[in-house]
């Protein structure tokens, strides 16, 4: 599939050159790319899911390697893998139920049986996607055989199926792909609308006359604040400018345009102002499985100041930012050092930055990291498109979105079979 490969390569180059900004855009583009990979992928008769998983993993590995710091790529790859597994599983259970059905044919409760598999497949998918719904007793009971079926990997269901009903196969393979693409579309939809779902909750958190502080610019935060404003809440916002990118200026401009009382402050004034702030609302770059946040640089400072003054530190994050990995030394390993020219003019200090002079070691280093790591204990609340959560709950939320088999996205020769 040269066309897909070309698409993949193009996206990889974009990622490598850091042309894609923001985790939401990255996530959406990744999902779209993977969708086209799936649709182009020719599937064998048996073990279609395995083939798809292999293909996605192959692409995903390259994508992740292209920008290991952009965790959204890995998240989406894992989400798609999870979708494939799930759809396959639901089909398999449907097939098993169908087998049962044919075996026990002519039964009077045919219609009822007919309903069952459908319901269970829907339940599995729903349980996977809408994570917060408490499982009813019925779904729990229905899920039991499913979860037992998980280990006997997807292929076995397909194999047994393939042997038993070859005529049904082509339709089934089409159905699987179709279902998967449907689900990925849903995922893309979710990513696109996560702002709305998050900002719907704004009125529950922002009340009249509140003072809110944020740093830098996050689209989610902007929409969150604007949603509260639209609901006739009047409050004021302190925006720290977020050097060296100064995205805070953009946010301030957008908020002012929407009629919000906005005060732009320097980053250094955060500690001075936080004693008058009721709530800190920030966006995140990624949320780790332990509840820690990879956030734009400077937020750790803000979080510490908020903790000092017992100000709630609220992180807004779409579910595509949930990363199933646990961070190790994230300040260094999940960070990115940007160009020093954002801090110092090259011309101004060029004599000092001369690496070739003197004893070989330059006198001047300029450090310009892009991200900060905010440990979970500093975060009061996560607001995702599925509601508000504690940092300690993140691991559970992640279990709903990702399959444990996909945490390491690497092509293993035996992974498919």
């Amino acid at each position, binding site marked *: 599939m040269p066309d897909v490969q070309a698409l993949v390569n193009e996206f990889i180059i974009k990622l490598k050159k850091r042309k894609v900004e923001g985790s939401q855009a990255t996530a959406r583009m990744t999902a779209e790319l993977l969708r086209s990979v799936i649709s182009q992928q020719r599937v064998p008769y048996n073990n279609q899911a395995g083939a798809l998983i292999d293909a996605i993993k192959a692409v995903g590995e390259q994508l992740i390697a292209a920008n290991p710091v952009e965790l959204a790529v890995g998240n989406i790859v894992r989400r798609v893998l999870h979708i494939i597994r799930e759809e396959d599983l639901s089909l398999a259970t449907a097939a098993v139920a169908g087998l049962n059905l044919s075996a026990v044919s002519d039964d009077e409760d045919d219609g009822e049986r007919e309903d069952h598999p459908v319901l269970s497949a829907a339940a599995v998918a729903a349980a996977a996607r809408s994570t917060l719904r408490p499982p009813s007793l019925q779904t729990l009971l229905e899920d039991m055989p499913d979860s037992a079926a998980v280990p006997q990997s997807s292929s076995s269901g397909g194999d047994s199926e393939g042997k038993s009903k070859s005529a049904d196969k082509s339709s089934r393979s089409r159905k699987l792909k179709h279902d998967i693409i449907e689900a990925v579309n849903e995922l893309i939809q979710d990513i696109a609308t996560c702002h709305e779902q998050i900002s719907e909750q704004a009125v529950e958190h922002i009340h009249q006359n509140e003072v809110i502080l944020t740093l830098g610019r996050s689209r989610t935060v902007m929409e969150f604040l604007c949603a509260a404003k639209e609901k006739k809440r009047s409050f004021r916002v302190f925006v720290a400018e977020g050097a060296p990118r100064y995205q805070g200026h953009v946010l301030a401009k957008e908020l002012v345009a929407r009629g919000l009382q906005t005060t732009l*402050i320097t980053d250094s004034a955060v500690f001075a102002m936080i004693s*008058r702030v009721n709530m800190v609302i920030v966006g995140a770059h990624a949320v780790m499985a332990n509840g820690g946040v990879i956030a734009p640089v400077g937020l750790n400072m803000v979080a510490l100041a908020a903790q000092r003054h017992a100000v709630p530190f609220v992180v807004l994050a779409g579910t595509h930012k949930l990363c199933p990995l646990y961070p190790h030394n994230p300040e260094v390993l999940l960070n990115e050092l940007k160009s020093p020219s954002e801090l110092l003019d090259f011309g101004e200090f060029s004599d000092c930055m001369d690496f070739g002079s003197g004893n070989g070691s330059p006198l001047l280093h300029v450090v310009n990291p892009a991200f900060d790591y905010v440990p979970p204990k500093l975060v009061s609340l996560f607001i995702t498109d599925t509601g508000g959560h504690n940092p300690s709950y993140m691991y559970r939320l992640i279990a709903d979105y990702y399959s444990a088999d996909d945490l390491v996205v690497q092509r293993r020769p035996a992974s498919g079979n």
Partner: protein
Amino acid sequence: MDPRRGARVVIDPKVRQVGFFAPGRTQSAPPESSSPPVADNSPAGNSLSPVMIPPPRHASDNLHSARPVLCPPLRRPGDTIPVGSYNPSEFFPGTSPTASFYSKVGDGEFSEDASGAGWTHRGNSGKVASSFPSGGFDLTAVKPSNLTTVSVVNMPPGISVKTRGALIEVQNEQPASSRSLKEKTSKAERRALQEAQRAAKAAAKAEVSKAPIAASGVATPVNAKPAKASKPSSQKKDSASVTASEKKGVDRPPEKDRKKDIPHPRMQFDDKSRVEKAKRRAVVRPIEVRNRVELFRHLPQYERGTLLPDLESKFFQLDPMHPAVYKVGLQYLAGDVSGGNARCIAMLHAFQEAIKDYSTPPEKTLVRDLTARISSYVSFLIECRPLSISMGNAIRFLKSRIAKLPLSLSESEAKASLQSDINRFINEKIVLADKVIVRHAVTKIRDGDVLLTYGSSSAVEMILLYAHELGKQFRVVVVDSRPKLEGQLLLRRLVGKGLSCTYTHINAVSYIMHEVTRVFLGASSVLSNGTVYSRVGTACVSMVAHAFRVPVLVCCEAYKFHERVQLDSICSNELGDPDAISKVPGREEINYLDDWAKSENLQLLNLIYDATPSDYVSMIITDYGMVPPTSVPVIVREYRREHLWI
């Protein structure tokens, strides 16, 4: 000699066992040395022991003439902490104990003119102690004795005389020569001599701190000669007079005075009537910023752009304003002079000029007219830029000197005396204080350290350069923040001197803090609740350092201490030019706010200072030594008059 002393021979056996009474030492000591150094009649003193308070100075003049005698016992609990970590050889390389000792005497004599008693400078005595390589004196022996002196403060004269006696014995357990020095001095003469010595010492000091050994030659005669010349007086009389003076000086001020010490509430700019009144008096008519920040209505928020040309055009109308003051005011306004010390020195120099050109108008007295004149200068300077606390202290000093001018002085004498006072203030409180701070702080820098500093502090810069001169191997992290980006200037100077530097913005402070071993910060002021009032962002840096368990050392001259208290950065602050926020120099692409700056909903807030809570500060390095932030009120209170502002 003192009969009472004999009566109080054995009081605290524990104390007797230690320190000065080691056999080797007592041999040389005369009979009275058998009496213990400590009076037991001071439960208060003992109860004070957990507090690291340096004892009050017994009598400043007594000390001066007999400094060599007094200093070793003056090693006190408060000092021992910094002292312990001193490496004497590092401090005065190659100096013999005596030499460095004398050099010390010359070095830190800030409190000379103290008419009453006060304390020795912690820094001074600490250094003296440290300059004894062997540390031969037992600390514990010294400690109780000091505590008694603390307790003396509130005691009836009789008892305190006894204590004094006891203490003086301690001092007398020195080699005979030094004791004789002291015995020969009478208080009155020493007082008289002091005035004469002052100038000589000030000169000597500067050299001393640069080259202790060389300076010892200068300092020694200054101290020794007057002592020898003075006529002998009995020990008893000496101790009595000492007590008297001590009581006068150290005793708590009467209730009325104390009330006066409460700092005046500052001008609140949300108080309409007062603002109107102030405006009528003002030279320049500032225009209020259109979008004022609601939270900071109590602070002046004026348009910046119009002020400078307005003021410049008024040059010829400003009749009463001295040109030097005018110049400084413009410099403040334009930001050419910034930084607490620089501003304070510039102001004092301007006042000096103004005093030089001053002549008392007919039918007026110099004291009152000059004070009024200075006040008008000050209000002019306030219009240009709000005063820093250090400047406020300097002005208070100057005014108190004017008020205390003897009426007998002729005008020229009075002017000369004021000018020399100002010089002395600059030299002792700023220049020398910085040198002392540098000496202290450099002991806290080890090889391999990574030192973080924020913004640009003159004291920290001196420390770093001095440590580099000493050949210490360390790296510097310069953290900077908008809008002033003062760190870049510091960075350039440091890199120019060959220091290895890392530069970053304040947002990345959490990233860089992992590798940092010490944080050195400057301060605009240290308030008496231990709050460090400093360049905005200092609180953030020290908070992150605190979170990462990195010690935070604040370097601040003691003249910047203030008895005001503050819990947050909002009640009192200074607002800079709001337009500096919306524009990022050198980054033309960041112009999002160009059209929006006039919008009603947008306010730009450019805070200048913030208040760092004292629990983030590990140590404050001042010219009186290295103290925890909890000791600031002690220093402020005890050095309040004579010592803090001379």
